[in-house]
């Protein structure tokens, strides 16, 4: 029985594809992804060839590379002790044993096989029929992708009705410009990352806004649900297995991402890497895979292909984050910083989803996606024609950035430097493009009050103040009102964005809506109100939601609140990785 179950599980983790007789060919005017399947084999081959070439250029004995990857994989699979280990561990152990005795040709072949194994595992799929199906399924689309078997019934029970999904999400920003740009170059969306919902939500937003679908790397753990897996896989997602630490695997992944951008596939990368554990807007961006998009531009230019790359700073903002509790606990645990995969968070619990959707009905559009003004890989803004515009409003030639003495060159160090600078710029843009949701604003005001009322305590001391700090509604109304005014002023100056509710609602309404949203959503009670007194029951979740405002804390502090605001800002600085 267990054998059957395990075989079935194994089968289900392999994404299913629909059979098809003829290759899909993209029609003129369709995004290149519609023709992906006919290019898939070619792309895998190109990735393997490039990885091989790079290994050769490094000049290290191939044995080292082979040894490293085999040791990493044996170690990983020994630790995993699952079906994958049972299937593959023997092969890796064999390779480890044999590689000392191989001659150079055999080593090169073994490395090629490993690279090909990885590249095929990573490579996604795009089935236009699945895309059409998903498009038709709207407005049930998003819910259907997420929890197809039960969502429609649930939605009915919850009284949300079929319009629900469209109401759930708000899209704003440079949509018109993006609709013009996608035919002129390759769009690379670089959003903030706070939930596993992000890629699905963004994918849905693009579909709704008549923007082309994007390819993106999705954690392999997201593929464990066969139905989620089916949609993700067939809508262009490629699989990223974060458990594999081998450098060769990362190289394959990065090369794959780069080749896709090079070939004009609109892409999505989360430049912060993993979900923000703290709820802070990412400030230090490593860019990782997104860096391959800069190199892709260089490579195209060297080959004489002038296809611009447009980075789109995007913020995905939620009133409530499904996995909030697990994420913040993980951040607070010092050891948690090294933990990349959380298998058992709220994302995998059906009842959390039901609670999530129930809450969505009560909030303003609970997810707001904002598309910022696109920039080229060198940080220049882009005009309606897709041209790079210099600081003086003059169009400039982006290929100059990858040229020396009039000739385009490949220079990984140069591109890495451009990537770092792009990371800084994106972090700045995230700050001004973040949309502050009512839950976050109210949490900040409450947390700041808590900090003011607990002088001398450190962060952990404060987080233990469960139910110890209470405020009257009048106090809170005044504080929230003044803070909202300052936030609205900041928004006027373009320093931040506010959600519709944060922008327009009166303090009392805001408080009521937020209290209702919090109530019963997370496991822990965040806030209670009795006889006009609000008690802060869970500082940890307040911290999580208010962290989104850390960058503005000092600017929105009122008289006497500056020390508390500074402390909040410092706390985030000390927290390090977001």
């Amino acid at each position, binding site marked *: 029985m267990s054998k059957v179950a395990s075989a079935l599980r194994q089968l289900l983790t392999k994404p299913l594809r629909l059979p098809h007789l003829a290759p899909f060919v993209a029609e003129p005017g369709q995004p290149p992804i519609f023709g992906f399947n006919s290019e898939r084999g070619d792309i895998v081959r190109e990735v393997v060839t490039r990885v091989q070439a790079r290994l050769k250029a490094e000049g290290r004995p191939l044995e080292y590379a082979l040894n490293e990857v085999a040791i990493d994989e044996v170690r990983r699979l020994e630790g995993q002790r699952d079906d994958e280990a049972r299937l593959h561990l023997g092969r890796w152990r064999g390779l480890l044993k044999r590689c000392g005795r191989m001659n150079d040709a055999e080593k090169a072949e073994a490395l090629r096989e490993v690279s090909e194994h990885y590249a095929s595992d990573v490579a996604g799929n795009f089935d236009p029929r699945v895309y059409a199906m998903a498009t038709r399924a709207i407005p049930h689309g998003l819910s259907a992708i997420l929890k197809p078997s039960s969502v429609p019934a649930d939605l009915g029970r919850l009284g949300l009705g079929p319009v629900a999904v469209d109401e759930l999400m708000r899209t704003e920003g440079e949509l018109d410009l993006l609709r013009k740009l996608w035919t002129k170059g390759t769009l690379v969306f670089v959003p903030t990352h706070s939930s596993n919902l992000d890629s699905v939500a963004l994918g849905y937003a693009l579909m709704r806004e008549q923007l082309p679908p994007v390819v993106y790397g999705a954690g392999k753990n997201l593929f464990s649900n066969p139905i989620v897996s089916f949609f993700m896989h067939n809508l262009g997602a490629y699989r990223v297995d974060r458990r594999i630490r081998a450098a060769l695997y990362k190289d394959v992944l990065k090369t794959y991402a780069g080749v896709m951008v090079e070939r004009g596939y609109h892409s999505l990368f989360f430049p912060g890497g993993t979900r923000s554990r703290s709820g802070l807007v990412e400030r230090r961006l490593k860019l990782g895979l997104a860096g391959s998009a800069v190199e892709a531009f260089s490579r195209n230019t060297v080959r004489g292909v002038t296809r611009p790359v447009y980075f789109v700073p995007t913020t995905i903002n939620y009133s409530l984050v499904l996995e909030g509790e697990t994420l913040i606990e993980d951040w607070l645990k010092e050891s948690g910083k090294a933990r990349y995969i959380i298998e058992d968070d709220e994302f995998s619990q059906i009842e959390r989803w039901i609670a999530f959707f129930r809450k969505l009905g009560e909030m303003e559009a609970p997810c707001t996606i904002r598309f910022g003004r696109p920039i080229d890989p060198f940080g220049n803004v882009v005009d309606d024609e897709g041209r790079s515009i210099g600081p003086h409003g003059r169009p400039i030639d982006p290929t100059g950035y990858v*040229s020396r003495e009039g000739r385009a060159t490949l*220079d990984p160090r140069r591109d890495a430097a*451009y990537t770092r600078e792009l990371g800084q710029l994106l972090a700045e843009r995230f700050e001004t493009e973040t949309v502050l949701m009512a839950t976050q604003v109210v949490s900040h005001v409450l947390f700041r009050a808590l900090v003011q009322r607990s002088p001398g305590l450190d962060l952990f001391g404060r987080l233990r103040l469960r139910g110890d700090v209470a405020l009257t509604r009048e106090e809170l109304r005044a504080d929230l009102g003044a803070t909202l005014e300052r936030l609205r002023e900041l928004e006027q100056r373009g320093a931040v964005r506010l959600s519709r509710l944060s922008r327009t609602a009166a303090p009392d309404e805001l408080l009521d809506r937020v209290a209702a949203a919090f109530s019963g959503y997370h496991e822990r009670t965040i806030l209670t109100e009795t006889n006009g007194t609000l008690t802060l029951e869970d500082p940890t979740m307040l911290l999580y939601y208010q962290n989104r405002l850390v960058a503005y804390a000092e600017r929105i502090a009122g008289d006497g609140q500056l020390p508390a605001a500074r402390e909040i800002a410092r706390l985030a600085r000390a927290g390090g990785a977001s």
Partner: protein
Amino acid sequence: MSALSVVGGGGFGLALAHAALRGGHSVTLWSRRPIDERPAGLLTTSKLADVAASDLVLVAVPSSHVLDTARALGEHLEGRHLVVHVSRGLVGEGLHTVSHTLRHETAARRVGCLAGPLGAATLRDGLPGGGVIGTAFGEVADAVRTAIGGPALRLYETEDVLGVELASALVGLLALALGFAKELGYGPSTLSMLMTRGLAEVTRFGVACGADEATFHGMAGFGDLLAAAFGDERPEVLLGRSLARGQRAVDAAREAGAHVEGVQIAHRVSARARSLGVEMPISDAIAALVDGTIEAPRALETLMQRRVRRE
């Protein structure tokens, strides 16, 4: 042999031109004023557009002119340009680095900074000397070495651009303190104490801003400070001396020679340090001196009365 441009006809700009001409390169120098003693082979221009003809542009204007110059250059520079500056100082209320200003005001991204104990005379005459190039781009450092390097010039390289620029600007502040203490007649042990503590505090500041500690102990920090201490009477030292004589900052600056960056940044550095939670007693004292809120003899006394802690 290749072509390069120099922006700025002051002592350092001319020294850069000399060094490049010696290497056989063709040099175009932009200057507001006519150049009196023009080295043989130097092309001069008063039009910034001419500067853009070569890919490598060396900017040698005082930091008080950086913003205007960068804006004007913005009309001409493009992605293909490599831009390296030699200005000691920080720009504006925001204390932006010069390379930050160049990157924001122009389309150039491959930017760097040349700093350290390299004096104009050393560079001009090809005497043994050295400095450090702060840049994230290896090709920028290579281009500078090709342009002005020679058998007697050692140019190190670091990716910590922020560190190089902060160290370079803040050593200016310390040079001012040095001149001040010298004028009051203090001897080597007092001066050494002042410089050691001074370097420690500007390093703290730099690290709090995100720079690398090691950079402050290298060419741009320690190296440059030694050059000031060994007595190349740079304007900041002269300014410190004038302040010690009780002159007002404005007059002192005029007497020490134009564009003394120390005067302009002392106050701002001090304020920024407070918001970063970094203690900078020497910078605070300099800021107070420059503002005229503290009398010359009192300044050092205040410093000495601080509580002594572990080093």
